[in-house]
């Protein structure tokens, strides 16, 4: 029997990507709890397994064995489709991410565009879930998420456009190959293209935090104000899938930041490039994301929108104009 190798490749990557996303979602919760604990000089999970390493497994079993309650009065279709709408695009985005020279599921010429297209579906999932659950807290949370994402998508995409102007391609693989050879080649320090490149990275990172609804921009799940925000009516694995989707989105965001600004799988000193460098950079960014969460308190909603419209958008547009001028002149 002849099997097309392309099908085997497809299946291998499908299983691999789902396993990677699920494993990350599980162990990032562990990392988050451990890191939070140590920042507050506590220990964190330690009873289940060595260093509490089996804690995510136990949490997963707990979530899966809980009853899935569909409250009376919810929109049954939207309520059930929303967690899937958050999870699936996050998994889909992994398809175009090049983890190393050869390790990529599908090398698309518009890889960057695909990721941002799927990333915006995440908001739709949250909005539908919140709307469908017939809960005032959920609806307030959804309104916040949508306005927050509209506000932060602009500086993020303007920054990305600036970067695409420099690289001249949307192919993620090519973007990384342009930066190979040491940290002085990375887009983060590409000062000849634009002296504001580190600022662009900062803007991208802040927008990524806001897009993934992480603290200090976690308006969607502001526990002290909105119970659990959009997730209020979800129980068991319904909530679990939302949660996994959120963490998968953080992984995507950190991966994209690594690829665009930190040279992907490139070694900082030009030696031994490979998938390990990609993972080191990505997990360092994720560590920073968690570190930020346990450092800053939640901003007010107006402060959050002011930051985007009054600071991030003007600066990113200025960077866009400066970069295009520099590209034209030099």
């Amino acid at each position, binding site marked *: 029997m002849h099997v097309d190798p392309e099908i085997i490749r497809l299946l291998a990557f499908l299983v691999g990507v789902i396993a990677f996303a699920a494993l990350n979602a599980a162990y990032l919760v562990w990392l988050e709890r451990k*890191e939070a*604990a*140590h*920042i*507050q*000089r*506590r*220990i964190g999970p330690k009873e289940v397994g060595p260093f509490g390493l089996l804690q995510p497994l136990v949490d997963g079993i707990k979530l899966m064995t809980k009853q899935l309650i569909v409250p009376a009065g919810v929109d049954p279709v939207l309520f059930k489709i929303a967690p899937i709408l958050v999870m699936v695009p996050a998994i889909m985005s992994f398809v175009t991410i090049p983890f190393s020279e050869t390790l990529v599921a599908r090398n698309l010429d518009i890889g960057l565009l695909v990721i941002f297209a799927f990333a915006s579906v995440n908001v739709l999932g949250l909005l539908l879930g919140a709307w469908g659950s017939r809960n005032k807290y959920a609806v307030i949370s959804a309104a916040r998420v949508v306005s927050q994402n509209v506000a932060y998508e602009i500086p993020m995409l303007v920054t990305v456009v600036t970067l695409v102007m420099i690289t001249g391609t949307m192919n993620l693989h090519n973007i990384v190959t342009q930066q190979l050879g040491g940290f002085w080649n990375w887009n983060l320090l590409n000062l000849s293209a634009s002296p504001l490149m580190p600022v662009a990275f*900062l803007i991208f990172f802040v927008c990524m935090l806001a897009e993934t609804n992480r603290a200090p921009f976690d308006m969607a799940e502001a526990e002290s104000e909105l119970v659990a925000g959009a997730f209020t009516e979800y129980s068991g694995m319904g909530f679990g899938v939302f949660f996994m989707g959120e963490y998968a989105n953080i992984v995507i965001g950190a991966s994209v930041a690594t690829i665009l600004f930190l040279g992907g799988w490139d070694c900082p000193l030009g030696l031994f490039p490979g998938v390990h460098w990609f993972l080191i950079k990505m997990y360092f960014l994720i560590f920073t994301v968690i*570190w*930020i969460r*346990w*450092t*800053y308190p939640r901003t007010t909603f107006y402060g959050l929108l002011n930051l985007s419209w009054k*600071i991030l958008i003007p*600066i990113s547009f200025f960077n866009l104009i400066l970069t295009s001028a520099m590209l034209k002149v030099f």
Partner: protein
Amino acid sequence: MIDYLREIISGTWSLFVGLGITIRYFFQPVVTVQYPHETLPMTPRFRGHIELTKDVESGETKCIVCGMCQKACPSNCITVNGEKREGVKGKVLTEYTLDFTKCSLCGLCVESCPTEAITFSKDYNLAGLTKEAYIFDLKKRLEAKN
């Protein structure tokens, strides 16, 4: 315009200062005490239930059965009894019972004792299943210590 930029730069800098503080804490040793496995020594002024003290020389109780503690107790939770014995000066303690279910740990008994025969213990692991478990026979406790 200058103020706008200065505010942005100083604000960004303050964020990095905050991150610096938390990462310093991250690398400092943890301060959690794993309670059932580890315990901290109790402070000198900790007030547990009362207990009888020993005389350093004889190893016996210092109690002279004067009954001051019993009188001082506002909740009547102390019962002291003694008897006269041949050849022994003063009274001998036969019973010292503390009903800890009523005790409010006010310490008036300790204050009123003329011979410093009672003191606060450092015992705080006091879970039990019956009410009777909290009627302490302090004389027996002292003898069990010896």
